[in-house]
Structures are given as C-alpha cells and as structure tokens.
C-alpha cells in the first residue's frame, strides 16, 4: 500500500502496539511487524520511541517499560495505554456496513457468525459510532441458496454443470465449470471459474444461472487459470475484438451513461448526451437501441444503425400482419 504516512498514522500505530503485545504477553518481532504491515527496522524504531516516553512532572519517570531482547517483545509496564483506543465512527462504520452487506448475501454458513460479530462490534463501538454506520448501506442482490451451493462446491473441490443464461445473445448455454471462488462486486454475486467450454476463466452471475448441478467429478482448475485482480478497476475488461458503438441520447435516455461503462461521454447541450459503448456483442447493442425507443439512437457504425432499423421494421411487420 502506497499510503502516505503522517505522524498521526504513526501515533495510531504506537498506541495500538503496546496493547497488541500486552494482550498476547509476548510477541516475536517478525510476527508483530507483519501484523502492523511494517519492517522490523521500523518496528524497533517504534519500540524505542515508546520506551523513551517520559513525563517530567511532578517527578520525572518513564511510564512504559518494554524489551525486545532475543527477538521477543514483552511489555512489563504499560500504564494507561494498555488498552487500544476506541473505534472512530468511520472505523466502526466501515466494518459494520461491510458485515451487514455480507449478511445480505444470505449464505447460511456465515449467518450466525455475522450476526454475532455485528452485535459485539456495535457494543464495542458505542452508540455514536454505531449510529453512523446506519447512515451507509450497501445492498446485495440475495443469491442465498445458489451462493451456498457454489461455495460448498468450491470448498469440496467439485466440478459444476451450469445452464447459464447469456443476455447478450438471449441464449441458455450448457457448460461444465471448475469453480474457483465467489465474487461479490457491485452488489452482485458471481461465480468465478474455469469454463471447460471456453477454456478460460469466466464469470457467471448467480442470478443468471438457470440450473446448477454439482458433478461427482473433482474440479481441475489448470495452473494457468488466473483469478481476476478484483482490486484493479473494472470487472470486465474490454477486448480488442470489441466493437465501439456511438449513441445519441435525449435527456430521458441519460440513464444509459449511469448504467453501462462508457468509453466516452460528451454533453451535446440541452441535456442531450453522446456516449460510446464497447461491447463484444452487437446483438446486445441492438437490443439496447430497441429498448431506448425515442430516448436515443445509434449514430455509428452505420451498419449497426441500419440493423436496428431492420429489427424494428421486422417486429412492426408482425403486428401489422396480425391485425390485418
């Protein structure tokens, strides 16, 4: 982590370091350094600083006594900083909001632990800090039973057979998948796994799994299967084969820019927008244009605009035929 370190970050660490050792009686230097995410050299510098704490009045004395001889830290005198500082409102909030979100995934195997830890943390945080956490909330589309089955298969290392709906192509597909993990991103749960049909790592949104069968076959995730780095930007990476489609949107069609990641968004005045979307699948874009109606239109590439026109004409022809 390349976070800048200020003197107050360091102070927070120093105040945590004494109780960290006190609550464990003694801790090895390397273990403590790892727990605080610092080098042993930095840790020793911290310990020396703590050891130097001195109060002058009424009589000079050193309230903290510690040693790290032989690579083991022990604290023999800790006085008033033997307990950690209370959680700040946003610290308690960050954990509580996240725990409530995890509880919403609805996996029964975690449900008990989550509600117990939420109660304990609310209690430890105190009323004020816990109140802030109710002012932020992350909703997750519950995939309760499906997520439990997927995680069970992951834990047991079983291959899965999926009937999976692909909205872009409006198709149900059949495939065997060796599950790797469950991702919960942007409020939605995905199975990440090695798709034996595509011979690659793929994501499957749990609410699009039509049917899931746990096969009596061990999962074999090949060594070259690399999980997505969920810390790096978008979940779905554009491919060089993608097409770029430009839309012009009326003020009522601006929701498209909220809904889909856009390559570019340009204000055209009067609330109108021009956006460029990338997609591997022209059928999906045609569907979007049909959905939009008068809220927007494809302005390029021209073949695609023409295809949408033809789609609409064919659909209308059926209504005319039916009423004729």
């Amino acid at each position, binding site marked *: 982590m390349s976070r800048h370190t200020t003197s107050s970050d360091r102070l*927070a660490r120093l105040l945590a370091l004494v109780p960290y050792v006190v609550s464990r009686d003694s801790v090895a230097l390397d273990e403590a350094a790892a727990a605080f995410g610092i080098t042993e050299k930095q840790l020793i510098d911290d310990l020396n600083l703590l050891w130097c704490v001195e109060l002058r009045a009424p009589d000079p004395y050193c309230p903290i006594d510690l040693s790290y001889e032989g690579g083991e830290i022990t604290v023999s005198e800790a006085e008033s900083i033997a307990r950690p500082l209370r959680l700040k409102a946003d610290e308690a909030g960050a954990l509580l909001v996240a725990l409530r979100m995890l509880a919403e995934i609805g996996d029964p195997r975690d449900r008990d632990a989550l509600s117990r830890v939420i109660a304990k943390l609310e209690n430890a945080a105190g009323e004020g800090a816990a109140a802030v956490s109710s002012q932020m909330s992350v909703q997750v589309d519950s995939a309760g039973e499906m997520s439990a089955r997927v995680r069970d298969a992951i834990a047991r290392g079983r291959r899965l057979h999926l009937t999976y709906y692909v*909205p872009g192509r409006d198709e149900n597909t059949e495939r065997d998948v060796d599950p790797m993990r469950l991702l919960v991103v942007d409020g939605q749960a995905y199975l990440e796994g090695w798709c034996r049909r595509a011979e690659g790592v793929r994501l499957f949104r749990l609410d699009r799994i039509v049917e899931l069968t746990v096969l009596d076959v061990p999962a074999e995730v090949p060594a070259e299967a690399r999980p997505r780095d969920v*810390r790096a930007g978008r979940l779905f990476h554009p491919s060089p084969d993608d097409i770029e489609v430009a839309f012009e949107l009326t003020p009522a069609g601006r929701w498209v820019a909220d809904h889909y990641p856009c390559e570019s968004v340009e204000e055209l005045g009067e609330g109108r927008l021009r956006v460029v979307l990338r997609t591997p699948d022209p059928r999906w874009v045609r569907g979007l244009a*049909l959905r939009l109606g008068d809220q927007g239109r494809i302005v390029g590439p021209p073949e695609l605009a023409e295809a949408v026109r033809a*789609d609409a004409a064919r659909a209308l022809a059926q*209504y005319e035929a039916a009423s004729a």
Partner: protein
Amino acid sequence: MVALSRRKTERLLNLVVCLLATRRYLTAEQIRRAVPGYPDSGEAFKRMFERDKEELRELGVPLEVGSEEETGEIGYRIPPQDYELPEIHLTPDETAVLGLAARVWRRAALAEAASGALLKLRAAGIETSETDSLGIEPRVDTEEPAFPALWEAVKNRYPVAFDYQGVGRTAATRRHVRPWGVVSRRGRWYLVGYDTDRQDTRVFRLSRIVGEVAADGPPGSVTVPEGVDIRRLAFERMETPAEARSATVRLRAGAAQGLRRWATDVRPDGPGWDTARLSFHEAERFAPYLARFGADVVVLDPPDLRDAVIQRLKSVLAGHDRGEARGDAG
C-alpha cells in the same frame, strides 16, 4: 523533516500518556512542564498545543476540557473509560468474517478506516487476518467523484449544495440538501436527504452530480429524524407500487430465453411459435423490456401494452431513419 515528525510523534505520545494518567484536569502550563518537547515561549507553546489538541481529536482521542473547583482554571484530561476500547472477544468463525468484512473496502474510500479498525481490534487481542479467503471475495467501489465529500458531510452532519443533472432534464440545477445517508444498489451510489428547496425527502444518484459538492452549513447542524430508514427511502420509491397485471405474448420458438425464465403457461401456438403469460406492473415501463426482443416477441394482450411496444418500435424506426443516421457517426 523526518526528525521533526519523529519529535512531534514523540511529543503527542507523551501528551496522551500524561493526560490519561491524570485524574485532575491539567492546565496548559502544567502540561507544558510535564510533557517533554514543548517550547518555553508562551506564544510558540500555545500554537503548538492548539495544533496537538486538534490532531488528537482527529485521531479519535477523547480530550475532556474542564476545571478543578478550587482553582477554576481550564484544564484537560483523557478519561480512560472514554478512551479505551471495551473488552471484545471473538470466536474463530467470527474473526474470519471480520477479516472478510475489512477486505470489502480494499480499494474504496473506507479502506483506511477499515484497516484502522482492524489495527485496534488486533491490539485488543483478536487474531484476524485480511487474507482468510473462505472462498469468497467481496468488493465495494466508491469511485464516484462525489462520494468522499458526501460521506464526510453525512458523518459530520452538515448540509451540502451541488449541481445535479437529473434524467429528463435539459440542464443541471443547484440543489441544497441535508444529507441523511448514502446507499448503494447494484454498484451505484445514492444520496438520501432532505431537499431544502423542494422541502421534501429526495434521492440523488451520485453519478448525476456535476462538479464539486460544497459544504452549505456548519458541522453538527443536520439531524437525521428518528426512525428514518435510508434504504427504504432510497429504494421503495423506485419499486413499482402498481398492481401486478398479466400479459399474453407470442414468443418465437427457441428464442426470447430472457422472457421464458419468468414466463408461465408456455405452450406451442402454431408452427414456430409459443404463447406465454407474463406478469408486469406498468405498461410504459414493461414495453421497453419487451421491445428489446424485436421480432421474437409479439404482444397479444392487453391493448395498452401492445400499443406501448408498437409506439416504441415506431420511434426506433424513425430515429434510425437512413437519412438521419449517417454523417455524424465519427
């Protein structure tokens, strides 16, 4: 610079230990004498002590200001019961989900807060790690540019002002809001609050906020009314209140899989087609969803839904007229 910050850290640490150790309120002068590292000169000391108090408050150290009866002089102390994290013990399954929770924010605005919390909990003796996997990887993003400013406003309870470009609006308008909370759904963030111009509760999508979010009043001046449930306020109005209605549609055989997942009563209806029933709420909102399937879906009934789909298809046809779609495709 390094030496300076080391001296400052040392001084602040001394100050905390000193104020925790005292039961009596210590005056500034007593503090100056007890804590090493403060200058002798009155003015320089005063400035430094003011900054130090501010830093301790930002760190969450409860600094109590008061005076002893006999002297009446203003003094300071840190009550240990307000300073200390209460005892907390977690079972192994509880520490595992806690580590998972801390990971949720790893690349978001609350990452620092989450690791700060974990640091303190570890210091309380809890063995938790952010690397326990449990086969699940949760992540929440707070990439919206307006998020940090709004979260600060929510936490510190002050009103805000910003330009907002609503869907269907031709221009952004200035909005003044008492923020009650922020909520995320399907990866999108919303602000819930009281709009002081409209004099009503409003929900704002963060992605539609244009430019900076400005503070519009002092901290502590916003009170969230008793019993407000920000999630209900944010999402209930998005849900359709109308009664469920039933539609009869024809689906091309083997196509419109997206609709078939929800359809009931699917039965063959002549060569190449099925009929099915679908439940919907509002024709105007359901029509776009059906239009998306183009020639694979034909609405038979009710007439208002059928007309809404036809209207939509006609406007698609008009919008993609051969003459218009050319030229500006860039």
